[in-house]
């Protein structure tokens, strides 16, 4: 009886220990819920690396100085499995159980906003990237969440500006295929059609699909039927890969193919090989940009992972640095003080200049990138181009 009682007490103690905050006074805990599995895991991989690299740099330099004490920073990352509900519960756990004083955001609007809403409710500062600004601002008037990324209008406009700058000869007919996630609805449903109208293009097809769709034959045939020379796609990588394959198998090669979001990670090129050639995607960072540490960051990532760099390493690395700088500037782990310090950010990071506006957003200018011989090269704006635009999209050999 006594033995059973002791075992129960021990089990209870163990249970309590595992539910107590992981935080201790000798370190500063920051948390992040990221898509390490599921359809968005490609983004999660880069984002995690960027966050961890920034924290590692800081710890290597001795940590953060708070009240004269150098404290190491511990980043706790939880997998949200590409599910906004899990992002929300992870954020809750990271704050309540792990004792995170501040948060770094997830990737894409559904996930990033889900975590930001929890942080907002708990009055915990959260710095995110990988969340287009219109989608971020549309959620609410933020007090504790901050976003460093591109604006949807800039992304949507980049391809149109590029076509105008290069005077590309097309029949001015556009087909739009966009996922029905918030950023897809925003860009595919609103911004692209408006840009097309303003620039004298005709939208011959505009259709949307859920983010787990795999069959796009009807949409592609409609675009082909409409004779669209330009196809604009907004989709995550699994869908972008499937769409590109199905376009080829439908015998449809438009003159210009833009695949926002999905064509960005290297897995897109690896999965499609030659079919990726010539595909355009909006970009916001390249190691060639004249910002401090840009080329070194890319080299470091490639040495660490043996994979080609992605622009997401830069925005995530920057988001983490902005948060760490703010904690240092606040000289405190008080969340209100950290939040106030984030608001005062005005510095050039690896991604470029970061300064937040009244909506808590800091805008990254857009470029257009193109897959050429297995590498993503900058093709617009001309003054930042690292390669020549390949036009039209190569025909697929039978």
């Amino acid at each position, binding site marked *: 009886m006594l033995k059973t009682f002791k075992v129960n007490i021990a089990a209870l103690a163990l249970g309590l220990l595992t539910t107590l905050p992981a935080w201790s006074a000798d370190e500063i805990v920051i948390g992040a819920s990221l898509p390490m599995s599921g359809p968005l895991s490609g983004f999660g991989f880069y984002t995690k690396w960027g966050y961890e690299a920034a924290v590692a740099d800081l710890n290597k330099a001795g940590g953060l100085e708070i009240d004269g004490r150098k404290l190491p920073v511990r980043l706790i990352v939880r997998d949200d499995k590409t599910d906004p509900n899990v992002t929300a519960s992870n954020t809750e756990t990271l704050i309540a159980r792990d004792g995170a004083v501040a948060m770094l955001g997830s990737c894409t609007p559904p996930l990033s906003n889900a975590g930001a809403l929890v942080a907002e409710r708990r009055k915990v500062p959260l710095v995110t990237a990988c969340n287009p600004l219109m989608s971020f601002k549309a959620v609410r008037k933020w007090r504790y969440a901050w976003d460093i990324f591109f604006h949807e209008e800039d992304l949507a406009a980049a391809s149109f500006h590029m076509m105008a700058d290069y005077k590309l000869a097309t029949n001015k007919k556009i087909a739009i295929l966009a996922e029905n996630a918030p950023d897809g609805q925003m860009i595919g449903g609103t911004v692209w059609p408006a840009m097309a109208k303003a620039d004298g293009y005709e939208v011959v097809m505009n259709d949307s699909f859920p983010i787990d769709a795999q069959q796009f034959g009807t949409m592609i045939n409609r675009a082909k039927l409409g004779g669209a020379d330009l196809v604009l796609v907004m989709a995550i990588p699994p869908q972008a890969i499937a769409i590109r394959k199905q376009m080829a198998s439908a015998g449809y090669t438009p003159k210009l193919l833009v695949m926002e979001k999905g064509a960005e990670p290297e*897995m897109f090129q690896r*999965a499609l090989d030659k079919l990726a050639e010539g595909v355009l995607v909006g970009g916001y960072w390249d190691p060639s940009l004249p910002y401090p540490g840009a080329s070194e960051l890319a080299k470091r990532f490639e040495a660490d992972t043996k994979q080609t760099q992605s622009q997401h390493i830069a925005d995530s690395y920057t988001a983490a640095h902005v948060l760490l700088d703010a904690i240092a500037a606040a000289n405190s782990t008080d969340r209100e003080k950290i939040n106030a310090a984030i608001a005062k950010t005005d510095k050039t990071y690896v991604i470029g200049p970061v300064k937040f506006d009244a909506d808590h957003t800091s805008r990254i200018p857009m470029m257009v990138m193109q897959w050429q011989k297995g590498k993503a090269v900058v093709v617009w704006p001309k003054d930042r181009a690292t390669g020549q635009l390949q036009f039209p999209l190569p025909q697929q050999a039978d």
Partner: protein
Amino acid sequence: MSSLDLWAGSLLSGLLLGAMLSLTALGLSITLGVMRLVNLAHGEMLIAGAYLSFYLLQYAGVAPLPGLPLVALVLALLAWPVYRWLVTPLQGKGPEASMMTMFGVSIILQSLFLLVFSADSRSVDSPLAVVPFSLGAISIPKIYLVGAAISVALVLAMHMLVAHTSFGRALRAASIDPVAAAVQGVDVRRVHALTFGLGAACAGVAGVLIGSAFSFTPSAGATYLLVSFAVVLLGGVGNIYGTLWAGLLIGVLQSVGGLLLGDGYRDLVGLLVFLIALSLKPASIVAEGASR
């Protein structure tokens, strides 16, 4: 290309894709029909086939179609320990125990895929998947045509196996009344092991075709499991020809859904059919069973 061509092309694609869907459902149907086993890891077996083909091509240069027999064999062999150590001990303990076990296997396999292959989206590099087959103004992916031919051939071969061989007789006997079959000298456990292996092999082959035509991730199996359930239920549990017709029907209905409502609503149509079939024949998933 006219609107008529668009409709004709979409319906033909739906028909061919439907044939492939029947193959994705075939393994699920026979394990359910013969063993009364709701194999919730069927989708992961399909994805395992896709990964195997992907790596066979990458590291051994084995193209997806010539590699199909190897993928089928490996999947069948991998299924054996699952059957022997996880399914066999639960026989006679009701359908829930084995169903939950297979649910656990599904989660474990997803995690293993994630651990070993990473979470990246993949696609089996098959030239057939990016080359159109043209019929006048209609273009359909060649992989649909080849995949449908392979699927129909395998469904027919399965029917021949079940209807015209001694193993098929034993399988039918075991599916109708395992106790009576055992009394008559049928080695029911062996029949079940082979059925489970056959189911896994079919899933593996379907995975290669699906992985070539589309893309896949470690967690993509769930989508195909759901559609497979719809096909099995519509065609009748264990009914091999029924699986083929149901696959074709769902493929065509998905295409009609895509044409009328947009590609994003293809699965909605399939799932609606599933729910209607379930409401009309709620007991069929456990009551039917004879493989025919």
